[in-house]
């Protein structure tokens, strides 16, 4: 029974991987990756890694893929152009060479365990209990480091993807509104430096009946 499940899962994993690379529409690539991840979770289960398989389905196929789908929907697929001629031929050749090299490395490996079915199964191997115990005892430092890395990445993503106000074009209405909030003669540093004198007549010319408009909205693309 195990070989049957293994080959089904392996074929789905490889088909999903090929689909990610070959499909032209990025949205279909994301869906192919979901198939690949779920097939891989089945392989993890066959290797008795229950907790990692569950985390794979929940975190990867659940959360990360939803993020991908949102970004693909936001950015749009766009028409994909073919790669440059040189890379288009050299890329698959390089991958083929890598595959041959890895196969030679595996065939010539001196590891005897590769051709065995693995160590005898101990009850409790790969469960959440064992993983949690290891994380909080032997691997406490990497665990804390991983949480710090997640925090840094979350803040970095917010900083990268936020709307930059400073890069927008000069806005005259904003200056007028600032003038109205700060009438002449209130003793600002601009008045002391003499800048204000040139601004005041202009502000009175427009008249103080310029209506205050609410905060601008919908300036993003």
């Amino acid at each position, binding site marked *: 029974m195990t070989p049957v499940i293994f080959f089904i899962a*392996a074929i789905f994993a490889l088909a999903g991987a090929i689909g990610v690379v070959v499909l032209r529409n990025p949205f279909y690539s994301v869906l192919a990756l979901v198939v690949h991840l779920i097939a891989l979770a089945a392989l993890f289960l066959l290797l008795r890694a229950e907790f990692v398989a569950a985390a794979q389905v929940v975190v990867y196929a659940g959360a990360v893929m939803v*993020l*991908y789908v949102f970004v693909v929907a936001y950015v749009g697929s766009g028409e994909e152009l073919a790669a440059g001629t040189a890379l288009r031929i050299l890329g698959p050749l390089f991958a083929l060479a890598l595959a041959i090299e890895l196969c030679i490395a595996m065939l010539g490996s001196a590891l005897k365990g590769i051709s065995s079915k693995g*160590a005898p199964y101990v009850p409790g*191997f790969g469960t959440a209990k064992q993983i949690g115990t290891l994380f909080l005892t*032997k691997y406490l430092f990497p665990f804390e480091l991983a949480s710090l890395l997640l925090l840094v990445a979350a803040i970095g993503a917010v900083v990268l993807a936020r709307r930059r106000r400073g890069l927008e074009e000069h806005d005259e209405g904003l200056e007028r509104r600032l003038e109205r909030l700060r009438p002449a003669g209130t003793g600002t540093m601009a008045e002391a430096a003499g800048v204000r004198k040139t601004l005041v007549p202009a502000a009175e010319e427009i008249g103080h009946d310029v209506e205050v408009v609410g905060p601008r909205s919908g300036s993003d693309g």
Partner: protein
Amino acid sequence: MAIGWYLVVSALIFCIGAAGVLTRRNPLVILLCLELMLNAANLALIAFSRMWGGADGQIFALIVMVVAACEVVVGLGLIVSIFRRNLPIDVDQLSELNG
């Protein structure tokens, strides 16, 4: 199933991912292919963890998943930022840093 079979599947997935990174031009798909390569490494780690009967490889695989999630978040943030500036979403044309 012998452990070697899992390693063969892992090597094939890694090579498919590498080919994708080299040939595709959309940064979104390049990120997806990077995920493929990281997952291939995860499969190999868990296969070796099964081979030795210790759960340390699984811990390593979980940490790799955390790092992959961070990489995805930052990469997608960059893509959204590129899109907001109306630049082409094509790694061949985004070459301002190319010396």
